[in-house]
């Protein structure tokens, strides 16, 4: 049930988490990174998760601060009750640009696509931060 401003618990939590994540990532990296849009999503295949569209985050930052970034991603996933199978950054291929950070609970159909990939960049536009392989 929303309040008079159209806010409800989910949107309030999203706003709080957007601001909190942005603040932590700025302090970690030392630049005023902008989290321009934080989305919770569900796809027709069955995948669901979180996308954080970033401005000012660079591939070098991922390489230098990967352990700290993964900890921040896990913290926000827990806050929003998302249990990701995979966490990855989406890049503009060949450039320094990180377009978004993504936490995704993979469906049965999409899991093999990620499981077959190798290395940190299974595709030119993906940088894998974490992948939980099934046993």
């Amino acid at each position, binding site marked *: 049930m929303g309040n008079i401003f159209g806010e409800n618990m989910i949107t309030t939590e999203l706003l709080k988490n957007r601001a909190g994540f942005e603040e932590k990532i700025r*302090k970690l990296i030392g630049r005023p990174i902008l989290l321009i849009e934080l989305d919770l999503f569900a796809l027709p295949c069955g995948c669901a998760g979180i996308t954080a569209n970033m401005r000012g985050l660079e591939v070098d930052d991922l390489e230098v601060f990967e352990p700290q970034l993964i900890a921040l991603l896990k913290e926000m996933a827990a806050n929003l009750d998302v249990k990701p199978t995979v966490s990855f950054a989406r890049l503009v291929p060949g450039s320094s*640009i990180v377009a978004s950070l993504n936490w995704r609970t993979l469906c049965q159909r999409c899991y093999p696509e990620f499981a077959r990939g190798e290395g940190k960049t299974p595709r030119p536009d993906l940088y894998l931060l974490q992948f939980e392989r099934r046993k």
Partner: protein
Amino acid sequence: MKLFVPSPGDINSLKELMTAKEKIYSIFMAGSPDYIGTGRSNLASPQLEDIKEQTDFVHKNGVKMELVLNSSCMGGRQLTPEGYRINNWYIEKLVDIGIDSIVVADPYLVETISNNFDVDVVVSVLAFVDSPQKAEFFQDLGASSIVIDSNVNRHFDVLHAIRDSVDCELKLLINEGCLYRCPFRYAHFNFFSHAFGPEPRPNVLDDYYYLKCLELRIEAPEQIIKSPWIRPEDIKLYKDITDVYKIGGRTHFVDWILNCVNAYHNESYDGNLMDLLDCPKDLKDLFYIPNKSLDGILEKQWMNCKKVCNKCGYCRNLTKKVTQVYSNGGTDTEKCMPWETYSVKT
């Protein structure tokens, strides 16, 4: 002052804009991307009947209508017999509708339209007229107005030289926040020209040029300060060059456009400078730069600036002094912090 004001391209937006008709000299908007595209993104795709309805509407309100066909790249199609025929057909229709002026970037279109049609031809900012020689060239081709390359908006020697060289109307694009001497400019406008021009259109997921532009500004916000925008308060310093000003922003909400119209009409704005800049709009939720904190700086520094940034540092120091960053944006604890709070100390 003659203000040229952007319209997103639909009649409802236009009706809202016309609530400020006494402040507006001309509306400008893009046409249909199916014929000649534009160098910017478009929200609407007005067909000829839509353009006629909107042109009639602004004329009834005593305002002129300008159509922007300023594609910076047409892939050579304009030089083919079919391209020539289609472009001529489209421009003939626009002239029949009663369009007052047409903005183009391609010199070939400047010449053919001025030779063949009874309509004012405006040279787009995307023709990059940044010298008296180039201005003379376009005037000789038949231009009745030239939008000067915004890169020289703070080069008063060049602006005066252009003014002294041509008799045609000169226009200044006043609120473009693009990087000074932007390295992406040609590639980005060529990309837009294809993405918002006739088929086939590239299906692009991420606009590299835009994202890279934002990355550079987040790393070094002095790039925002160095951009060649003109503050409403500084318009008075340009009055011996021109009294014709163009506000960019046809992809914005009408409310945003009207805020700019009021600021420039009043020659004063008490708020965030970022509110007025057409691009990059994403950063208005990141930076707060009090417009009034820049009072007097054009006269004191930029009018005589040699643009050798690595030996000067004025804009870098000014940025540290005036730029604030929104912290906890969108929450009850939102506040502005000094930019240095988030910068690595070197």
